[in-house]
């Protein structure tokens, strides 16, 4: 067991190392002087002293390998990703931390809704395979799964914001609301509704497809026949035998998605001008703000690696066979 955890940890560190290496290499492929890039690109005037200071900090006069790599990695570990081009003089790490709560609110809420609805629907569809509910749910889920969530978001804006005027389709707050008050919280959730729905619908599609497949695999197992022969009720069979065994792939997928959904929400945030990491990514892309883009890449990498780590560990706990 401890060997297994050790292997998982080593792999996680390797992945992060490769993300950091990719950042390092990409940053040096861009035409132009890395020192002036770190200071905000050639687009703004910087003094020779500032460039020299950057050269010192990042060791840009030293050989590329191993000195620069080591300097880069130690700076990354300290949380120093340089300065943003677009938001002059601001640290990339500060910018990202500022925007992180909005994204966590969006993807967290969407995850909860999607797990509740998607898993329930999928388990039911898999339990009653071939029924009317199964056909309708599976068809819709497959379509939702294949739809880019940002396009769903655009459709939601057209219907619920433009045509019906029920919900706001833009931004995170109404003008004039005092930040921190209860009215602000309600207003925030009000603005959150459509983006959350867009992200959640895509996830629901995925969860239904996977939960249904997991259930379908389980209900054809021999122990289900045994359970039926023992005289268990449908409910006992579903909860005690089928659902528990089908949980394994579902739990793994949900915990993996904790990492992937941040990246998946980027386009949705762009649709709704949601002030999270996605909005920041679009601004970084438009301004070709490389330090910011790399900070975001590192954040996405870290969240994906942590989610993978969690999935691996949970799998070990849930499946006793893995322990041996």
């Amino acid at each position, binding site marked *: 067991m401890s060997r297994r955890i050790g292997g998982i940890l080593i792999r996680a560190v*390797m992945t992060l190392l490769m993300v950091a290496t990719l950042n390092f290499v*990409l940053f040096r492929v861009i*035409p132009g002087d890395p020192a002036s890039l770190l200071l905000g690109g050639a687009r703004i005037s910087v003094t020779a002293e500032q460039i020299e200071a950057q050269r010192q900090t990042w060791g840009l006069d030293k050989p590329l390998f191993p000195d620069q790599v080591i300097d880069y990695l130690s700076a990354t570990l300290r949380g120093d990703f340089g300065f943003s081009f677009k938001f002059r003089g601001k640290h990339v790490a500060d910018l990202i931390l500022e925007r992180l709560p909005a994204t966590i609110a969006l993807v967290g809420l969407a995850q909860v809704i999607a797990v509740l609805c998607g898993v329930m629907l999928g388990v039911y569809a898999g339990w009653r395979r071939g029924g009317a509910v199964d056909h309708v749910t599976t068809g819709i889920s497959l379509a939702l799964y294949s739809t*880019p969530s940002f396009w769903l978001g655009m*459709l939601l804006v057209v219907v619920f914001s433009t045509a019906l005027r029920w919900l706001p389709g833009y931004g995170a707050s109404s003008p004039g609301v005092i930040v921190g008050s209860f009215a602000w919280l309600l207003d925030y959730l009000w603005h959150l509704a459509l983006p959350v729905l867009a992200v959640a619908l895509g996830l629901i599609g995925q969860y239904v497809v996977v939960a249904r497949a997991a259930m379908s695999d389980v209900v*054809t197992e021999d122990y289900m026949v045994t359970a039926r022969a023992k005289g268990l009720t449908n409910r006992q069979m579903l909860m005690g035998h089928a659902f528990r065994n089908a949980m394994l792939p579902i739990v793994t997928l949900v915990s993996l998605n904790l990492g992937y959904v941040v990246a998946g929400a980027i386009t949705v945030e762009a649709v709704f001008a949601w002030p999270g990491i996605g909005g920041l990514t679009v601004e970084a892309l438009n301004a*070709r703000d490389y330090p910011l883009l790399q900070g975001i890449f590192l954040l996405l990498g870290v969240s994906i690696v942590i989610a993978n780590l969690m999935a691996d560990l949970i799998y070990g706990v849930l499946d006793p066979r893995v322990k041996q």
Partner: protein
Amino acid sequence: MSKINVLSRSRLRARAISGFLRHFIGHGGAQLGLVCLGFFLAVAAMPDTLVGPLETAITATGDFLAPPSRLHYLGTDEVGRDVLNLVVHGARISLTIALLATVISLVVGTTVGITAGYFGGLADVCLMRVTDFFFVVPSFVLALVITPVALEAMGAGGEILGFRPSLFVIIVVIGLTSWAFVARVIRSQTLSLKERTFIDRARVAGSSNTSIMLRHILPNLVPQVAANGALVVANAIYIETSLSFLGLGDPLQPSWGTLLSLAQRSGAASVGAWWYLGAPGVCVLTVSLAFVLIGNALDDTFNPRRRVIP
């Protein structure tokens, strides 16, 4: 003797293929997928004959954001271009990007998978560590940071093989970042294939490693490559659409994703121009669904145990 042998073998193969085709065509999902795909391929093959050359802001014929009418079946965009015209030309760009990226990804994935599985040992460990990385970090995330850098390094002018540099970069980046899944599947299949007797026989007969991999293992991997290839295309369309939507596409050769990005920037959703954002979106949805259906049908046909689950 050997002639009869060859004849019966080719007849066997023909029978196997026709049996496969009958089963595959009989699959409801496959029929729907193939019809949709055929339609879009036909549209992508001859956009000029169907709707004329790609309209620009100068040659635009309609009003701004006009709803669908007899003149413009799918309405117009914010500079008066016909949306049907844009979507039909977008089909060509989107499908070409997705298919070429898939070819790259299948070639890389199959090569890595076969090599790792066949040789085993250190080669396997090294290749699979790299594969793990690309498996864990999604193609979209990698493309998001690589594409702008590659664009800056290459410059934005001119054309490469008939593509604007940004589209060329997107093709290569998607192809080189989305092969990990294929490599894993191919590796595990190779691991089981190389233990079979016919591989031993080929080795005893003096075949080289390369020849065994190409002539004995590769043909047996066709089912896996085909079924996964269809899913890789669906994924490539998704990534291309997302990247273009974030502004990494090329407005001079607009794909469906670029059209959605233009629609978003012109505020089509907030003025209720559903036709402008609806048309490219429906196309993306239909094509990726078609590939998913075809992929599932291929999987079902090749793998009878899975036939229970549609």
